[in-house]
Structures are given as structure tokens and as C-alpha cells.
């Protein structure tokens, strides 16, 4: 009896994740048919690193300990580019609503959480392509990269978690505002504060205390902190990579649960 129950539960968990992966797989297939967006998305981080980074690394304005500024900022640019992609991900929800694709998903016997998590992971796939691009850029400008396979894998995991988190946040906003115009407005408003109120391009210690408080509740700070500890040689994480990942994971789960509640309401 109990064994049966256990089997049933195991089955429904397998079913949940296979559906999540189906949604993700669909997005990957779309990218395979038309990968242009992966290339155009390389432009922005390239500008940050090659222009902003190269200039600021010469002026030594920002205290970065024993790291060069450009090495300090490379993980920050990675986290930022992940954020910039993910934060507009919600527009796809509105787009799919307008196309009726969303209706068909919601009518299918797919758990809402699996739909939301599947979308979140597909934003994660795009984040992985950003990881690859930024590693290449970083090598080109002479940033010392930590090539330990464990570190590489963990950078990928952090990128996926962060992008899943921010894309689900974006999905929640899309579900609330419901129209493209309003969504774009809010997306623009959110990106800059999330970016600047974080440790992406300067350490928290430089900030006034009120801004530090904001940065400490900003998930981007933890993504940057983890990447800084993992990605570059001599980089250190302030909070510890384990804690960073835990914060990102818990925040993602909470957002997915909220997102799954709000997501079906976008069609009304």
C-alpha cells in the first residue's frame, strides 16, 4: 500500500520534471532553428568589458583588492547580461497569450509550476550561451580564468539559477500588467536599479549604508558574489558560494510558486 503510494509519488515527480524539460526543450529547438539572438546578445557585454572595463581598470578608482578592475568586473558583467536577458523574458508570456499558444498549454494537463519552471530553465539555456561568450571575451582581454571543471560547472549552475529567478520575476510582472506596452515600461524601470544596486561593477563596501541594505536583498548581488568566487583566479566570494546558491535557489522556488498562481490569470 505504502509502496504503491511511494511509486505514485515518484511517478508524478518524474512526470513533473519531464514536462518541465519538454517546455525547455521546445525553446532550445527554437534557438536551434534561429540562433541569431544568441549572437546579437554578445554585443552588450562586449561593450561593458571592452569600453567601460578597459577605461576603469586604468584609473584605479574602485578598490578591488589584489584583483585588477577588469577581472573584478568580468563576473559582474556576466551576471548583468544574464539579468538583462531574463528581465524581459516575460514579454514572451504576453506574446504567447496574444498568439493563443498559452491557452493551449493551460488547457493541457501540465502542472502550472512545470510550465513556469520550464520557461525559467529555457531562460537559463540562453544564460549558458552568455557564459560562453563572456568567457571568450574575458580570455581575450586577459582576465585570469579559473578553468577548474567544478568551478566551470558551478558558474553554469549559478547562471541558470539567476536567470530562472529573474525570468520568473519577469513572468510575474507580465501576468500582472498583461500588456506589452506597460510591461516594457516596467522592465526598463527595473533593470537599472537591479544592476546598480548590486556588487556587479563596484564592491558593496563603497556604497552608502542605505544602498548596501538594498543591495543585500537584491538577488543579483548573490549571483555576482558566487561568480566572482568561481570564475576568476584569485577571486573571492564574500558570503560563500554555498550560501549564494542557496539564496538564489530559495528565491527561485518562491517566485515559481507565485508565478504558477498568477500565470493562468494573464489570459483573463
Amino acid at each position, binding site marked *: 500500500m505504502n509502496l504503491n503510494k511511494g511509486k505514485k509519488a515518484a511517478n508524478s515527480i518524474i512526470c513533473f520534471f519531464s*514536462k518541465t524539460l519538454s517546455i525547455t*526543450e521546445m525553446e532550445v529547438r527554437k534557438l536551434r532553428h534561429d540562433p541569431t539572438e544568441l549572437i546579437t546578445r554578445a554585443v552588450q557585454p562586449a561593450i561593458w568589458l571592452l569600453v567601460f572595463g578597459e577605461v576603469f581598470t586604468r584609473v584605479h578608482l574602485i578598490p578591488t583588492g589584489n584583483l585588477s578592475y577588469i577581472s573584478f568586473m568580468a563576473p559582474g558583467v556576466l551576471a548583468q547580461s544574464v539579468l538583462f536577458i531574463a528581465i524581459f523574458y516575460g514579454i514572451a508570456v504576453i506574446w504567447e497569450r496574444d498568439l493563443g499558444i498559452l491557452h493551449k*498549454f493551460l488547457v493541457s494537463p501540465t502542472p502550472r509550476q512545470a510550465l513556469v519552471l520550464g520557461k525559467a530553465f529555457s531562460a537559463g539555456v540562453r544564460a549558458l550561451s552568455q557564459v560562453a561568450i563572456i568567457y571568450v571575451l574575458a580570455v581575450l582581454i586577459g582576465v585570469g580564468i579559473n578553468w577548474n571543471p567544478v568551478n566551470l560547472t558551478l558558474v553554469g549552475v549559478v547562471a541558470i539559477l539567476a536567470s530562472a529567478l529573474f525570468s520568473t520575476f519577469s513572468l510575474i510582472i507580465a501576468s500582472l500588467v498583461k500588456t506589452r506596452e506597460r510591461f516594457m515600461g516596467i522592465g526598463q524601470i527595473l533593470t537599472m536599479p537591479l544592476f546598480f544596486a548590486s556588487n556587479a561593477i563596484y564592491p558593496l563596501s563603497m556604497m552608502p549604508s542605505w544602498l548596501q541594505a538594498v543591495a543585500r536583498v537584491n538577488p543579483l548581488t548573490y549571483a555576482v558574489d558566487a561568480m566572482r568566487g568561481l570564475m576568476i583566479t584569485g577571486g573571492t566570494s564574500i558570503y560563500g558560494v554555498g550560501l549564494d546558491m542557496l539564496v538564489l535557489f530559495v528565491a527561485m522556488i518562491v517566485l515559481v510558486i507565485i508565478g504558477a498562481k498568477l500565470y493562468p490569470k494573464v489570459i483573463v
Partner: protein
Amino acid sequence: MTILTTEHLTRRFGELVAVDDLTISVEEGEIFGLLGPNGAGKSTAIKMIITLLPPTSGSANVGGFDLAHNASKIRRLIGYVPQILSADGTLTGRENLMIFAKLYDIPKNERAKRIDESLEFMGLTDVCNKLVRNYSGGMIRRLEIAQSMLHRPKVLFLDEPTIGLDPVGRRAVWDHITKLRDNYGTTIFLTTHYMEEADKLCSRVAIMHLGKLAVMGAPDELKASLGDDEATLDDVFAHYTGGSLERGDGYTEASRTRRTARRLG
């Protein structure tokens, strides 16, 4: 046997009563048409029945499952093709089917077979590896029907299935809908505002007007009830809706002219 019923189904949006006390029943294996002018509440009614939109009051039952308590069970029994052409243009036809085969828990060893069968049935085998954005409207519609029949639904909901299609595309969709019913015994629940289409396809129709059910019955019965041998479903529609809201009195006028023209040959 009755497969679908709604009782006093009502949905309000603020002041507007989009669906007002709708009570209908659909028999297993029939092609049932929900008719009405634009804005009559057809799409809202469908959305409630297929679990997308919670009703304000009233109830519905599909295949023995109650909407309020068993929405997830209902989802396994039904298929849905929305009004807009909604297949994903950035994927191939086959990929569009594959994703739904997975979401509907069709076992791995059966997926390919089911997909091939659906493609064949809808006459899309030759184009299944092309991106859907290169399909014609009629082909996309057929692909969507293929998508919605993969899991062999008991009831298939089609919201304005032929809207915007050219005559050839419409004819192909009609044929496939009828064949689907004949081969698989699928109950078809469709909305349309093409009266000729409803007359040809549907064994029974319900006409909605301003959110309310105006009349329900077999097209022939409804036509006969007007007491005019040559009445068409257009006339029935005009009689119960007083012409459509959108088109005002022009509708009755137009349908009368059309009938005159036909009589003159």
C-alpha cells in the same frame, strides 16, 4: 449519452455579463455548434468549460467530471483549438506535435506513431519538417487540429475554426472535422458565426445573444419552427438575435436579399 452539460453558467466582467445563465447539453459523438454574433459570449463560454476561466456562478460537467472540483481530470479529456492561428511558427510541424504529445503524457514508444497518424490524417505528412511560419492558414489550422487530437480527446473544442480561411481551406477543415468525428467518435464542440457552415456540419446548434441562450436545437427543427419552407439558418439566427448587434438591421436585410437572389437563380 450526454457528455457535456452546463447549468446556469455565468461570467461577469465588472458590470458586463458576458455569459448569462447558460444551460446547454451536448450528446456524445455529435457536432455541436455554439452560434452567435461577435461579442455574444461564445468564446467566454468555451473558456469556462475548458477550465481556462473560472465561472462567476453556475456549473459545468464534462465526461462526468465537475468543473469546480475536477478541472485537471477534464483537461485530460478535452482538446482545444483557439480562435487565433496559434501553432508555433518558429518550430516545425512535427515539433509542434511532439511538444503536445509530451505534455499529454503519450508514452514514449507510442509518440512517433501517434504523430505520424495525426499528420497523415490531416494531410500534412509532406510538410511536417518545414517551419510552421511557411504554412498557409488552412495548413496551420489543420496542424492545430492534429495537435489537439493526439491524445484522442473525448470532446474537441474548436473556437471559430474556419475564420479567415479561404474557401479551399475552409472546405478541408470541414471535411477533417467530420472525418474526425466519424473515425474516432470524437464529440465536436465548435463556435462559428458562419451560418452556412453550422447548417452543414452541426447536428445541433445553440444560438447565443448578448450572453444568453436564445434557442437550442437541430438546424432543421429550428428552420421549420419559423413556419417558412425556405428559411435558412441565417433566418433563424436573425429571428432570434434580431440581426446582429454589430451589423444592426442590415443583417436581416442582407440575408433576405441573398435569399431572393438564390430564388431568382
